[in-house]
């Protein structure tokens, strides 16, 4: 059968005249010289063959390795010549010559054997290929090679990388190569000095890759010994039972090192006891009495004495063993000098990282403060200036956000829709505020507790109304494209554009508020009415109208704030109630009746919340809880807020 196949293939070879393969091309000769190893395809022995190819300096060597790696290299069973091929169909191949890449012809695949390198060999080939790719003429290939090294660096890459440095034409890629070379030097440098220099070159570098390169150097293994060794590679010593080394782990370490008897888990002990129940007894002890751990320990010890089970360490023994030994960390990632340099570098980096994180946290806090300020500024007018406590303020924020959502349903262009939504939201909530003032609040001036309850009634009605109209699921309010993304300052510090926009908006509102209150007729009249309504009325100001307009203005600002908050968070019927308590807190903490107080209050609340979150990042609920507690305590010490009006002005 075999013979028949051979004859058949020989006939076929004759039948399909192919262009002659260059048998004497240098690459073919090289392949022939390593032919045995290549065909054997063993991970252990293939090294010299790959090295020979890689070091040959032949341009075709890269093609060979490429094709070999992708299992496209075939060997002619008769001649032993190597070709690469693509399968035409199930049993025919189109073969090519390695020497010049020319097509030899289409042949049946019976005469050829495919080389199937295993993954280990493919890895070796890949590594060898990198040096070709690093010097490839196509910059994209070079970049891909660098990507590949960054993903999984190997020792051999270092030499290849160094070799390719001199020939690199592209400055950007060169810089990347140089950085990568230093990183690889840290890991694989031949001498300690070389590695230390490389480590020191990264002093204060915030890159994640640097930390990734340094961390393995300071890897430790926890060991135990009777006395603390004085080797240079010993790190800190650990106390069993501390967070770094739980008691059980420490003892397990001793057991593994055969320094102590094993222990038995409660479950295993129970199983062992159950397995040895005989006539309602375990080792002569009544089963019914085994209702405490001590009794079970005794029963087990009795079993062990009988030799039925293996003896285990008692708690006392565990304690004794643990106190007999010291536990310490041994640096296993690098020689001590390198470790010292790495530790130093890591510390410098960590300090810088902490600094940058603090800065980043500050930015976060600032943007949170802006949001609180936005939510609270309307209240600063209605509550702070007029003294009207409006529990439905949060619902005005919600109305503003829903206005934005509805506008986006009609105007698909996000930029335009936001520009339309802002004045519209102001108009809607201004109207709602005026209506509420006319219908409800003006009857309740000087009855603040009742105002609180009545506006609360409005609040729950509006909330349910929104639920009935828009449903309970969150509605999106999409920011324009140019607000997507974030301003990245470095690997740690970044801030999204939307937060910057909210910050700017908050500043604009502050300016608007100051302008309206201090520079306009309305502001003058508002101040007059709030200070002495009767006197203001006698001077021709209509307090009713002023109250109405002021309340409308405060509500309108809440509407705009709603649009801004909607961009940042989801629009739901409950979004208002998420902000109402914090908003009141902001105004109260800052000092009622003073916009700068509100600004300070928002800043304090924002920074406080972020600060608390920093201690416990996984838990924003806890942060809010502690923040509120802090504010309650704060009001103890400054009942009138940060900026308190004093004397008769406050009593008026």
């Amino acid at each position: 059968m075999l013979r028949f196949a051979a004859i058949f293939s020989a006939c076929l070879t004759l039948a399909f005249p192919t262009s002659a393969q260059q048998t004497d091309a240098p690459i073919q000769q090289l392949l022939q010289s390593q032919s045995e190893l290549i065909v054997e395809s063993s991970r252990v022995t293939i090294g010299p063959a790959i090295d020979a190819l890689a070091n040959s300096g032949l341009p075709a060597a890269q093609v060979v390795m490429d094709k070999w790696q992708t299992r496209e290299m075939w060997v002619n069973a008769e001649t032993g010549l190597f070709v690469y091929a693509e399968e035409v169909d199930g049993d025919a191949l189109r073969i090519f010559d390695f020497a010049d890449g020319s097509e030899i012809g289409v042949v049946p695949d019976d005469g050829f054997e495919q080389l199937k390198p295993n993954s280990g060999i493919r890895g070796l080939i890949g590594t060898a290929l990198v040096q070709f790719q690093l010097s490839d003429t196509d910059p994209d290939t070079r970049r891909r090679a660098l990507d590949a090294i960054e993903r999984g660096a190997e020792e051999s890459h270092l030499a290849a990388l160094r070799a390719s440095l001199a020939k690199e034409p592209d400055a950007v890629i060169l810089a990347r190569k140089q950085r990568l070379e230093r990183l690889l030097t840290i890991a694989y440098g031949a001498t300690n000095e070389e590695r230390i220099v490389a480590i020191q070159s990264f002093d204060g570098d915030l890159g994640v890759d640097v930390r990734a390169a340094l961390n393995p150097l300071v890897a430790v293994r926890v060991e135990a010994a009777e006395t603390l060794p004085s080797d240079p590679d010993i790190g800190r010593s650990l106390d069993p039972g501390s967070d770094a080394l739980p008691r059980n782990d420490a003892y397990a370490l001793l057991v593994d090192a055969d320094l102590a008897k094993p222990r038995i888990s409660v479950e295993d002990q129970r199983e062992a006891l159950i397995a040895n129940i005989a006539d309602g007894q375990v080792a002569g002890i009544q089963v019914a009495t085994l209702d405490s751990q001590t009794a079970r320990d005794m029963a087990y010890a009795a079993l062990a004495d009988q030799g039925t089970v293996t003896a285990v360490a008692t708690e006392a023994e565990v304690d004794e063993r643990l106190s007999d030994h010291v536990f310490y960390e041994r640096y296993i990632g690098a020689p001590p000098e390198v470790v010292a340099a790495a530790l130093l570098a890591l510390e410098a980096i960590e300090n810088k990282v902490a600094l940058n994180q603090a800065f980043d946290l500050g930015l976060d806090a600032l943007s949170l403060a802006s949001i609180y300020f936005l939510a609270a500024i309307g209240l600063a007018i209605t509550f702070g200036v007029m003294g009207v406590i409006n529990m439905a303020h949060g619902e005005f924020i919600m109305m503003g956000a829903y206005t934005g959502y509805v506008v986006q349903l009609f105007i698909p262009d996000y930029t335009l829709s936001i520009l339309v939504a802002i004045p519209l939201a102001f108009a809607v909530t201004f109207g709602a505020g005026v209506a509420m003032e006319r219908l409800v609040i003006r009857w309740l001036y000087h009855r603040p507790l009742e105002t609180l309850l009545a506006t609360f009634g409005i609040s729950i009605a509006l909330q349910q109304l929104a639920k009935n109209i828009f449903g309970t699921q969150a509605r999106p309010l999409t920011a324009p494209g140019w607000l997507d993304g974030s301003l990245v300052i470095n690997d740690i510090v970044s801030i999204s554009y939307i937060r910057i926009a909210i910050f700017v908006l908050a500043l604009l509102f502050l300016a608007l508020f100051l302008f309206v209150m201090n520079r306009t007729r309305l502001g003058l009249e508002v101040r007059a009415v709030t200070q002495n309504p009767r006197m203001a009325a006698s001077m021709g100001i209509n307090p009713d109208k002023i109250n109405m307009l002021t309340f409308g203005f405060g509500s309108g600002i809440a509407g705009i704030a709603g649009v801004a908050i909607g961009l940042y968070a989801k629009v739901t019927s409950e979004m208002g109630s998420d902000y109402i308590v914090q908003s009141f807190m902001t105004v109260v903490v800052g000092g009622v009746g003073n916009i700068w107080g509100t600004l300070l209050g928002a800043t304090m609340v924002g920074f406080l919340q972020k600060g608390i979150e920093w201690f416990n990042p996984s838990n924003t609920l806890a942060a809010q809880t502690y923040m509120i507690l802090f504010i309650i305590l704060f009001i103890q010490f400054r009942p009138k807020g940060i900026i308190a009006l004093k004397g008769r002005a406050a009593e008026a």
Partner: protein
Amino acid sequence: MSTLLEVSGVSVSFDGFKAINNLSFQIAERELRAVIGPNGAGKTTFMDIITGKTKPDEGRVIYGEKSVSLLKMSESKIAQAGVGRKFQRPTVFEDQSVFDNLMMALKKTRSPLAVLFFKPASEDNDKVAALAEQIGLSAALYRKSGELSHGQKQWLEIGMLLAQDPRLLLVDEPAAGMTPSEREHTTDILREAAKTRAVVVVEHDMEFVRRLNCKVTVLHEGSVLAEGSLDHVTKNQQVIEVYLGR
């Protein structure tokens, strides 16, 4: 006569405005004293400081034979120590009867627990009845005090002060809004009260002050301008300037 209250070197300012400026004042036990002064002279603030409502920026307020400082005490502690105050506007608890108002003011232990388990003894009821007699409200004892006339409310408040049995009585414009006959009654009550305790009356009305027939202190811009009998101070050139203008 020993000094009951000594105010010395007291100053207080609101946002830069000096309401009281280095004020010193003394009153002896069982003395009746009138304090007069134009608007803004600091009369009410002066009372606020003594009763603990306003804390002065500097100065001392010493009270009683043990010479305790009132500055560190809360309003209620000062009141318990025997300083009673009647406000300019009558402030009685309008929702409650005259009897309840007086009973509340009656000198008794003020702690919540004592109040909760308080049961009026017959002498307490007698005392309330006597007070009502004194202020002419016997017939209105069980009416809600909100139903009383303005003058009756003033009396009720004076009655509440007397019920407190204070050693120092501060009275702010007691005659405001009273008919002439009511005023006369009020002077009688105050003079009667001054026989057993110190009474400080702040008043605008010179006629009323004249009828009190006592030493007068004139306040101006937060400090004492003149002190003496009414005739003496009304002859003082500065006082005339302040009252009549230049």
